């Protein structure tokens, strides 16, 4: 990931990375648009609806509850890049990630994979799409079936890919398990016999077994200790290099996101509020929420410390859909009625997009 990318960063103009065969992300001004996106997320909405019963409507004047988990989000993901996705808990990151790989259908909007609308896929096509698009989960304890051995867990993926011959399976299993830093003797163990970091490796092996080119990593290191977190991050990085993987990397730890991502998207209550190149975003956050977020990260080195912005007010829930900006009640830069009257529009300059009335 960044290992390559950082090279790009330092020597932005001149160097084409040689270390990998992957298509470089030429991220000069507007450059991203020149390349074909691997995945295009277009106006995707995912609403969870809890219908109030007839009586509740009649007697208690209760309305249907709608959770606006993801609300009108659009962005592109380019091949080989890592797009970081941050935001508060419950803001819809996982929902978005799962929608992208079609674990559930979007309520509205389209998802294009190599310019093909995937929401209409079914049967074999869906199967093929799933094979190419995998997910790694946050919770290493819940994402592995506790009743199956590691071998069985990964084998399912191989079978799904059509590898049914025993010897082929075994060969591939061996390769996969070693690739993620475990050894063959682990294959016959059950998940509960592993530590969190090891489990996460198994989850990664399972995803890799499908030979995907796109992986949603849904907070893959959040549950892990710092020292192990670093191991997994490095592992993902190596694998990306090796297999030209593209990542949507969900996390709430900004330092990790900063470390792994080429670009970072910030979500707030189901909406995308800012998206930019990593360095750009961290150096020049535009949205007040992003600014507060960045200032809140506790850092070890005094030199990295920012002036802390303590937000007032409490987080609203994705149940409410107030008129105007969703962040208005906590915002320290409110500029007037417009914030409570109008949804801010998405404004993009030089590949740095923002949805805030401050920015025009």
């Amino acid at each position, binding site marked *: 990931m960044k290992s390559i990318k950082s090279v790009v960063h330092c020597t932005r103009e001149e160097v084409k990375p040689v270390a990998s065969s992957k298509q470089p992300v030429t991220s000069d001004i507007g450059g991203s648009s020149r390349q074909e996106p691997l995945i295009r997320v277009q106006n995707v909405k995912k609403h969870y609806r809890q219908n109030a019963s007839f009586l509740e409507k009649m007697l208690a004047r209760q309305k249907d509850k709608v959770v606006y988990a993801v609300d009108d989000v659009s962005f592109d993901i380019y091949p080989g890049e890592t797009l970081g996705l941050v935001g508060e808990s419950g803001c819809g990151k996982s929902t978005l990630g799962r929608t992208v790989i079609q674990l559930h259908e979007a309520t509205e909007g389209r998802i294009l994979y190599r310019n093909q609308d995937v929401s209409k896929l079914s049967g074999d096509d869906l199967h093929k799409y799933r094979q190419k698009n995998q997910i790694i989960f946050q919770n290493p304890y819940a994402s592995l079936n506790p009743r199956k051995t590691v071998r069985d867990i990964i084998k399912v993926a191989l079978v799904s890919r059509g590898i049914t011959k025993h010897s082929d399976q075994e060969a591939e299993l061996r390769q996969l398990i070693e690739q993620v830093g475990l050894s063959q003797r682990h294959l016959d163990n059950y998940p509960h016999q592993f530590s*969190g*970091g090891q489990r996460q490796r198994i989850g990664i092996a399972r995803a890799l077994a499908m030979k995907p080119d796109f992986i949603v990593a849904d907070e893959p290191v959040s549950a892990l200790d710092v020292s192990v977190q670093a*191991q997994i991050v*490095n592992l993902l990085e190596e694998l990306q290099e090796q297999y030209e993987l593209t990542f949507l990397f969900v996390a709430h730890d900004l330092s990790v996101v900063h470390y792994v991502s080429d670009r970072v998207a910030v979500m707030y209550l189901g909406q995308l509020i800012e998206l930019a190149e990593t360095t750009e975003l961290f150096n020049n956050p535009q949205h007040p929420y992003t600014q507060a977020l960045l200032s*809140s990260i*506790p*850092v070890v080195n005094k030199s*990295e*410390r920012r002036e802390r912005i303590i937000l007032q007010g409490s987080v609203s829930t994705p149940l409410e859909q107030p008129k105007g900006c969703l962040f208005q009640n906590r915002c320290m830069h409110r500029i007037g009625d417009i914030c409570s009257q109008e949804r801010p529009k998405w404004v993009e300059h030089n590949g740095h997009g923002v949805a805030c009335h401050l920015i025009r």
Partner: protein
Amino acid sequence: MLEINNLTIGYATAGGVVKAVNEVNFSVKPGQIVGLVGESGCGKSTALFSIMGLIKSPGKIVGGEIIYNGQNLANNTAEQWRNIRGKEIAMIFQDPMTTLNPAYKVGNQIREVLQTHRVIEPKKKGWLQRFNLKQQEKERVLTLMREVGISAPEQRYESYPHEFSGGMQQRILIAMGLACNPSLLLADEPTTALDVTIQAQILDLLKRINKEHGTSMIIVTHDLGMAAEFCHEVAVMYAGQIVERGPTDLIIENPKHPYTQGLLKSIPHITNTRQKIEPIPGTVIDLTKLGNECAFMARCPHAGAACHKHISMTQINEEHQVRCALYERGSEASGLQQAAGHL
């Protein structure tokens, strides 16, 4: 005000006795914030709970002493413990969602502390006095709630925990901890369950309390960054032992123990010039397999023969201590010391 000497706590399990806390020494001075940093399962919570006398069976204090204001807590009767808990020493737990009793209104849960410790003494006993007392206590609770930054406390008093967000719940817990103006506040990963922006709010609040009331605190965390920003002193724990201890700045800038060093290197830094992270290889040792020798040996880049023995705390300077063969006086492993010199 708090001195912990050679504290050792064991859990009797099927696989043998697990020494969750092993010869731990540290102290807290009035008004000081001490951070206890370490990976999951290294015994941070156990150490903290022992100060409250709340180690769950099969846990047991095997050795050492906890001296609070000159008094050894280990000899406390149940009655004495109750007088200390909540009143002298209060505690904030990691996960606010599971720490508040879902069945009772938050206001009453805070008031319960006041009630238990008779913070407000009724002058006479009687029906009216009791009602009055309740009103007074309620007033105090409302003040506390206001203090920890809960808006409209009158309404919130009547709410149930599940009606609160995580940040709000944590504030309630803090208010509960502060109810009796304790001199020592123990916080077990108080912000782990919260979002970054909320975490900042809570830490801000704790800092203010520390400044305004002079409350001493012990904060358990696995986030080195948080400890660095928040604590006066840090103790780094590994596998039940404190491996390094000293003023925060000193430890961050000049870590001595290979584990502390490794930890600092595995954290990504947000700088423009990219520093590659270097993970510590391997995983934390299984505490049941803990022997006499250094517990970090298997993951240590400098491990050598000298590590195969009991290692004690070495004073680097007045304030800075480390538990590593590299620094042991008279260590025969001069090669190691050389290696240390390179660090």
